[in-house]
């Protein structure tokens, strides 16, 4: 092989390799995206059926219920326009508290209950997860505009 041909082979191998890698990457990417969805969107039926997603909102005051001595816990996530009941089995994070923002991931179960497999609370007491803050703002805007639209 001449120097030129060698270089061509090298370039082709490179392009092929990078192409395959890019295809695999995008495929993996597409399959593993988790959408963030607010309680209002869940109530409006925008939750992807049978797919995992992330649900975030404020933990409604007085909604956390735990069977004595059991790891099963249920609570309600709200964006103050709509709310969604959530069930979870396991240990809640240190910063999980009523009246605070959390992000959960899981999927919709029967009867409009969200089955969480993971609960994330942020690690700074002053800090609100940005998605939750946005979702709250969004929900507030819709409620006020609905109120305003009424005669």
């Amino acid at each position: 092989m001449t120097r030129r041909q060698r270089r061509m082979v090298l370039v082709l191998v490179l392009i092929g390799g990078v192409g395959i890698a890019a295809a695999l990457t995008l495929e993996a990417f597409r399959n593993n995206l988790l959408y963030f969805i607010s309680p209002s969107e869940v109530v409006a039926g925008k939750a992807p059926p049978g797919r995992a997603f992330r649900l975030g909102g404020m933990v409604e005051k007085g909604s956390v219920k735990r069977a004595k001595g059991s790891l099963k816990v249920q609570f309600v996530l709200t964006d103050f326009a709509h709310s969604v009941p959530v069930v979870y089995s396991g240990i809640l994070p240190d910063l999980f508290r009523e009246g605070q923002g959390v992000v959960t991931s899981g999927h919709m179960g029967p009867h409009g209950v969200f089955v969480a497999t993971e609960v994330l609370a942020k690690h700074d007491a002053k800090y609100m997860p940005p998605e939750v803050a946005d979702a709250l703002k969004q929900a507030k805007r819709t409620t006020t505009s609905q109120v305003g639209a009424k005669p």
Partner: protein
Amino acid sequence: MIPELGHYALILALCITLVQVVLPIIGAARGDVRWMSVARPAAVGQFVFVAVAYACLTYAFITDDFSVAYVAQNSNSALPLIYRISGVWGAHEGSLLLWTLILSTWTLAVAVFSRTLTLAFVARVLGIMGFISVGFLLFMLLTSDPFSRLLPAALEGQDLNPLLQDPGLAIHPPMLYMGYVGFSVAFSFAMAALLGGQLDSAWARWSRPWTTVAWTFLTLGITLGSWWAYNELGWGGWWFWDPVENASFMPWLVGTALIHSLSVTEKRGAFKTWTVLLALFAFALSLLGTFLVRSGVLTSVHAFATDPARGMYVLIFLGIVVGGSLILYAWRAPRVRSTGDFKLLSRETLLLCNNIILVVAAASVLLGTLYPLILDALNLGKISVGPPYFSAIFIPLMVILLILLGIGPAARWKQNSGRWLFGRLLTSAVLSVLIAAGALLVLRERSSIMVLLSILLAAWVVVTTVINLYGRYSPELGLSRSIRRTPRGFFGMTMAHLGVAVFTLGVAFSGAFSTEQDVGLAPGQSYDLSGYQFRFEGVKQVPGPNYIASQASVQVLREGQLISTLSPQKRIYPVRQMAMTEAAVDVGMFRDLYVALGEDLGNGHWSFRLYYKPFVRWIWGGALFMVMGGILAASDRRYRLAVRREATANRYLPEGVS
């Protein structure tokens, strides 16, 4: 008074650094020796004043000066001394000051240990490092002054974020920053070489030890961060693909590619422009990492600073540095000619493949980290990319990388006959397959494809590495002279590559054989996990210096024998009203037993998270092997010898000629 001194010192440092940028770079362009000679003293001056500022802030922390806003937000009179010292970098402003201090330390090191380089080259390197420093000093003075006063002064501080009150985290940021900032040296060397049009193997030889040292620190920093997350977050995991972890991992991947490509540039004179590009990207990703963490754009445990002005500043600065250096690259790089010619089957090609894999890995991490941010910024919805994405990409890439890792060091530079290489590797291949088969016999039904694959690959890496090591032994010379004849860099490579094998086994085994269980237990009750019996004895209240802890006592038994008594805690930090889990771990070479205390379930029941984690230590152990390899390689004598020889040669050149 002291805080004002610190602030003043920062301003003085900025002025000196401006001089360090302007005069030497213009001087180097005009060949003016007096202007170029300003670089070294200016670097010393910059270091002194940044160090003074840093000392002032530390003093304010130690003396509980709550009239300084930053101290009031991040300290407390009950905080133990070590966390007051580490609290300096506990939040945004102070960690920037630490960044700048480390940058000026690296600058000082270059100024001191560069006696052998030409003056023009040193002037350019220090000028470019000074430019980066100016960016950070301005950032601090304009948007995030650590010394701004609080009027009226607070009576008591708001305490350091409890998450950061851990010895692992106290040293994690300085190590990480040493690595991040260390890549600025490789970057400045590359840019100075482009400016001077002097991109030769001597440049690669100068860059190599510096880059290796930076890479070593970065490796250590990431390892400490991972170990801290394991201990402190109570999730029992060692890596979460959290955006901030990714931010430190991307420069590591590119940095690893860089230290390999530098070896080709040094030894064979090939890949010159590619090496420059890697040096550029390694540093750009370090800056991006700083931006991602510090601007608060990430939904992450680390995002403690949320200020758009700051994010904007770093973004613009990043744009100037990356854009400017890319323009310089586009302008100068086409003139560079790579000299070393090589055939398709050669060590050069194999190292090129290593580079491609590492860069593709870094790019896919970048995609997974930035895509959600971009989508969010464009209001196209909020998504997150989870660990499955990263596993799907990393596992195949790393399999190829590990296979190549066995072949590369065995291959010769320039060209190989395929048959010779095959013959050389055949024994290793057979041996590794035999080892994997042996493992299958031992593990039987417990084995899985991933476990066997990891054993096969680790065996391949170990066998090929050991055979290469044995190849350095020559019976005529005897053992001790064979060792002395072998460069230390070779031992460094051997060590780091063995570390990769150890790490692989740790990841695969802890992933495949770990068991975990969330349980609710009453005092006296026990739970069996993987042959270990965890017995809950009871909970008592324990006061700490700045917290109150509920401490459980859990006995771990195996076949009735007491192995260890673990005391996991749930701490409440009253100042911040924060709860923190302090997991208890019984550490072992082959397994960790890990207990995290959950919450009071009522009726005396408490929830626990129990883990049995085999081989998890091997993950950090492998990383420490890599660190030791880095230290060995950076201390190779031949860098000092070769540099000295060149210095003698350079002495006869008129100053400023490059």
